[in-house]
């Protein structure tokens, strides 16, 4: 199997304020396993608080995992010194403005990673290389001496992409790269990311709350709910035969963008109960099919088809 990244039983707990000034542990990512194929794009979808971003950051060890193992290119990097890997593993953030230093010229923003990694001898050479990258992401050489604040949101995201590419990575975590952008700019960035992936053989972990965007980008997807990977598999297989009740609810809730189908839609009217993390399935409190066992016992992941697995008692 040509995997570039494999994650096994990843867990991340955060300590949050609890009752009477005590701390309690909050499980942001709970026993998540998946892999990203070389040259492929693995999409992670889920709602806010589902643990998507934490998973992405933990995979890069920007956040340290509580438990589980991370393999990059066949090597266990869970406890490794990350310096040699930073070049190979990059990230593109959701908020382009917030992730670019406003006091750095674009040329320095883009070439900083090269300098830190001791690439391309001189500053002049690095800036030449940065100019190449800017052209590749649809900006121009003249932009080298401008400041991030002079650019629009879409252009800032292009700078963020150029910066990630500067150290010639093989794997990039794209954390909601288009969510903060206007509709007319989202398509530009999605097309750019896809073209770069093909040209450079990049592998992506693509994080988004937008199912249609993930469908367009990813060849395999995983659906996260409250830190648990409830369904995982080949994109079209999962989307055309969604198994987990949560995946089905998520797909049903997408606005139809078609007045006729919108009129025919069936809606869940009741607000979801803010579920307590109990012993059983995380989705049990919201699940219309929940049985006794769902509240008592955590379901385990099962293969339900070729490259399609689901974590639900209905399929045991």
């Amino acid at each position, binding site marked *: 199997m040509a995997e570039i990244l494999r994650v096994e039983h990843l867990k991340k707990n955060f300590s949050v304020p609890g009752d009477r000034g005590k701390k309690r542990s909050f499980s942001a990512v709970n026993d998540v396993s998946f892999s990203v194929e070389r040259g492929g794009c693995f999409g992670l979808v889920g709602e806010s608080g589902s643990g998507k971003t934490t998973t992405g950051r933990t995979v890069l060890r920007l956040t340290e995992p509580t438990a589980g193992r991370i393999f990059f290119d066949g090597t266990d990097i869970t406890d490794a010194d990350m310096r040699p890997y930073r070049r190979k593993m990059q990230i593109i953030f959701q908020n382009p403005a917030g992730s670019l230093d406003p006091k750095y010229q674009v040329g320095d923003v883009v070439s900083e990673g090269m300098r830190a990694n001791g690439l391309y001898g001189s500053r002049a050479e690095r800036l030449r290389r940065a100019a190449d990258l800017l052209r590749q992401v649809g900006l121009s050489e003249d932009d080298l001496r401008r400041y991030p604040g002079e650019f629009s949101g879409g252009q800032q995201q292009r700078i963020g992409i150029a910066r990630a590419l500067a150290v010639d990575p093989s794997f990039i975590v794209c954390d909601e790269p288009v969510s903060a952008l206007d509709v007319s700019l989202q398509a530009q960035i999605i097309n750019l990311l896809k073209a770069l992936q093909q040209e450079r053989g990049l592998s992506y972990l693509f994080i988004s709350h937008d199912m249609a965007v993930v469908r367009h980008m990813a060849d395999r997807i995983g659906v996260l709910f409250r830190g648990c990977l409830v369904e995982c598999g080949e994109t079209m297989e999962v989307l055309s035969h969604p198994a987990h009740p949560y995946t089905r609810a998520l797909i049903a809730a997408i606005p139809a*963008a078609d007045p006729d189908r919108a009129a025919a839609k069936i809606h869940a009217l009741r607000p979801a109960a803010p579920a307590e993390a109990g012993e059983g399935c995380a989705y049990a409190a919201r699940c219309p099919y929940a049985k006794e066992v769902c509240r008592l016992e955590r379901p385990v992941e099962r293969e339900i088809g070729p490259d399609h697995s689901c974590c639900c008692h209905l399929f045991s």
Partner: protein
Amino acid sequence: MNSLLSVENLSVEFKSGGRTAYAVNDVSLRLEAGENLGIVGESGSGKSTLAHAVMRLLPDSAAVTGGRILFDGRDLTAMPERELRALCGQELSMIFQDPMQCLDPSFSVGSQLTETLRAHEKITRAEARTRAAKMLRAVGLEDAEKVMRQYPFALSGGMQQRVMIAMALLTGPRLLIADEPTTALDVTVQDQILHLLKELTRQTGLSVLFITHSFGVVAEVCDRVAVLYGGRVAEYGTVRQLFANAAHPYTQGLLAAVPSMESDREQPLSAIDGTPVSVFAQAEGCPFAARCPRAEERCRRERPALHEVEPDHFAACHAAKAPALAERTGEDHG
């Protein structure tokens, strides 16, 4: 018969650091009673400024420089402040993207709801509580008594949004202005809130002016839609007309740029080139000309007026001239 809301040639300008931002330019719109009108646009299109102008909630740096806003025939822009405050909250209400912008964190939900009612009507505290609880149930918060005792921060985002909707509807307004009310919500919660708004309009005859950047949301709740670009109306028509037969290249581009659950994954998305027009520039010609695939010399020189391309369907584009031509561009597009 007066329209419920009629915006006539409205212009709003902001003064910012010695520069002038032309946020809304010569916008005219109508909303009939019992109808839902969607205003679609990107950031900087003027959609929120328009909504705030109707409620006279513009900041001091902004001013209405032309036109008027009629609510059931009464001019809101010229109305004395006192009269306007009585009207707003009573017949006109607004909900926002962030419920915490509207809910006070230091008062319980119940006291905020009853205070709203008692500010507009002479009723006892007990009566107000009963009506508040009833409204909370109407927006899907079954355990109304418990919610009334809670403080806003103890509620989930979806529940906060429901409380804000309940507060806006307490006095039985005829028009609700909804400024991106579901943008910050998860998709399953968004679906519930949209459905709730649709049900409420059906049951009570409420009209909604729905500000959004999403055509999907418009398709769910609106009857008519106006697409704003650069502070101007680019296209205006029924939701069906715009989805089936968009006449303005910007509308066509927006509709095509969004990936759907049916689109071809192998094909690149058809992106709109360039970046949105600056609010500081007042272009001589069409504001979309710089990004338009069909722009000609004339488009850069002469600003197109909003004209009828088919009954009840208007576009501000030189290329979308006659109904026959609009049909042809629709085919090109699809």
